[in-house]
């Protein structure tokens, strides 16, 4: 059995998760503090990939990243790189699809934060950076971790947008989900089933982790326990 699809899936999911970890927290932190109107509009826009079919996300990405489109043509001209049909093209697709998961859970966590903690920190002379990393983030840790794990799980399962942007080339852009589809299509039922089992095992572990995290942080109040 060729393990490339597993490795490819894991690296795409891992890189995308690292990117949305920072992007999602950044967006959540600033939008949680924004005035209601700005918040409402940005919220709709940033959550859209969660409800759009992944094929629509894939289509929109191809419209900008394709070799004859704005960004795609620019990258080709300047760096001589094609942004689509490589293994890392899937990172664009996955990042867009999982962003809302991270953003929404992180925003929920930030909104439950007790601002008087930040205010007392400021009055005590603590820098805003210190307050963010040493008080706000630990307080919201459970929510942010749960969001990260959930986003990672979703990234592993990404199929629609990935298959459009990266395609399916065995040994080059194949992921677990595109491999399962390809094997089923070519009637290789036994191998398809093996990959299904692999995928289920990973998802099971990840969801177990989410559950454990949520149970520990039930009250949402940092390390507080009943």
């Amino acid at each position, binding site marked *: 059995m060729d393990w490339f699809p597993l490795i490819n899936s894991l690296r795409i999911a891992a890189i995308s998760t690292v990117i949305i970890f920072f992007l999602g927290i950044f967006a959540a932190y600033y939008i949680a503090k924004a005035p209601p109107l700005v918040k409402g509009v940005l919220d709709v826009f940033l959550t859209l990939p969660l409800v759009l079919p992944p094929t629509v996300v894939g289509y929109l990405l191809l419209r900008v990243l394709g070799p004859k489109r704005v960004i795609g043509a620019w990258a080709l001209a300047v760096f001589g790189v094609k942004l689509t049909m490589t293994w890392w093209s899937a990172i664009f697709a996955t990042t867009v699809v999982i962003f809302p998961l991270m953003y929404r859970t992180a925003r929920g966590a930030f909104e439950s934060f007790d601002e008087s903690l930040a*205010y007392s920190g*400021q*009055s*005590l002379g603590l820098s805003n950076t210190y307050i963010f990393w040493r008080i706000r983030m630990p307080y919201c840790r459970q929510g942010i971790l749960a969001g990260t794990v959930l986003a990672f799980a979703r990234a592993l399962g990404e199929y629609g947008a990935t298959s459009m942007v990266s395609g399916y080339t065995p040994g080059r852009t194949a992921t677990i989900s595109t491999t399962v589809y390809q094997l089923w299509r070519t009637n290789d039922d036994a191998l398809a089933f093996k990959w299904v089992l692999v995928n289920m095992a990973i998802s099971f572990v990840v969801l177990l982790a989410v559950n454990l995290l949520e149970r520990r942080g039930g009250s949402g109040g940092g390390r507080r326990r009943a």
Partner: protein
Amino acid sequence: MSMSVDIEKSFGDFTLKLAFEAGDETLALLGESGCGKSMTLKCIAGIVRPDRGRIVVDGVTLFDSEKRVDLTPQKRRMGLLFQNYALFPNMTVLENIRAGARREKDRAKREKSVAAVIDSFGLGELADRRPHQLSGGQQQRAALARILVSDPMALLLDEPFSALDSHLRFRLEREVREVIRRFGKTVLLVSHDRDEVFRMADSIAVMRAGGIEVCGRRGDVFADPKTRAGAVLTGCKNVSRLTRREGNRAFAEDWGMELVLPDGAREADYVGIRMHDIRPGRGENGFRCRVVEEIENPFSFTVMLLAPGGGNAPVGWETEKHIWREHRAPELEINLPKQSLLLLRE
């Protein structure tokens, strides 16, 4: 050492507009919830930016809208104590106090002042606990220690006792009074509890609807609260509309009583009298009243009395139990000594 505040801030249809000065003393902002007293502290601490005005503490301008000065909360050095104490939940007591000491860059000095404050607040045994493992009183002590180690220029205490059970309050009030005494600089105390304010503060500013109604030494404010809100907030439960008649006479509309006011009494819209200032028996401003209700308190009686003239609100008289047992009757004579009458503006 002093604090001078003159600020204005609007939120929708609520406007906060007030000015006061305080020396090395405890000034209490007394008012009902929503009157803007906590907002005032937030403006001074730099959490909320006033629309206009000036805040100067110990000669340092913290905020001045004309000179465009607006120091960050970090630079203002205000010791702000929140109602819920705002201890960092992910840190132990020791780590919380160390966080408060971070302004001091010299590590050895910092550790020395942390150790000193832990010792003086008796937090040694609690140093490794997290805030949720502490009682309300211990949390308050840890929060005060964390503030004092940061060497603030003034203390701002926002309803410091409201999160505590009443039996703990008395003891913690004594602890906080001792902290204030040792601190020796300006302390602002926000509260809605007149007893607490009277015990803790040197001066009192009575607040209503975003402004200060009366401000003065605590004895003066309780003796002459000047406005209806001031009277109610300082615990006067008998208040009636007042119509002036000829000479020194005036009619208390709600009580249905014609009263003789002290000589040279000022114009007033209302009259008030504290429940324990009413006297039994005949005298000036004496009325024969019907007992509407008697309410037994742990150590006193409150007797609700209605004048015969057809008032719509009874007057409450609070008296010791043995005195009421002596006078108990369906009807009795009481008098409202004119020097005890509070003359109040709207």
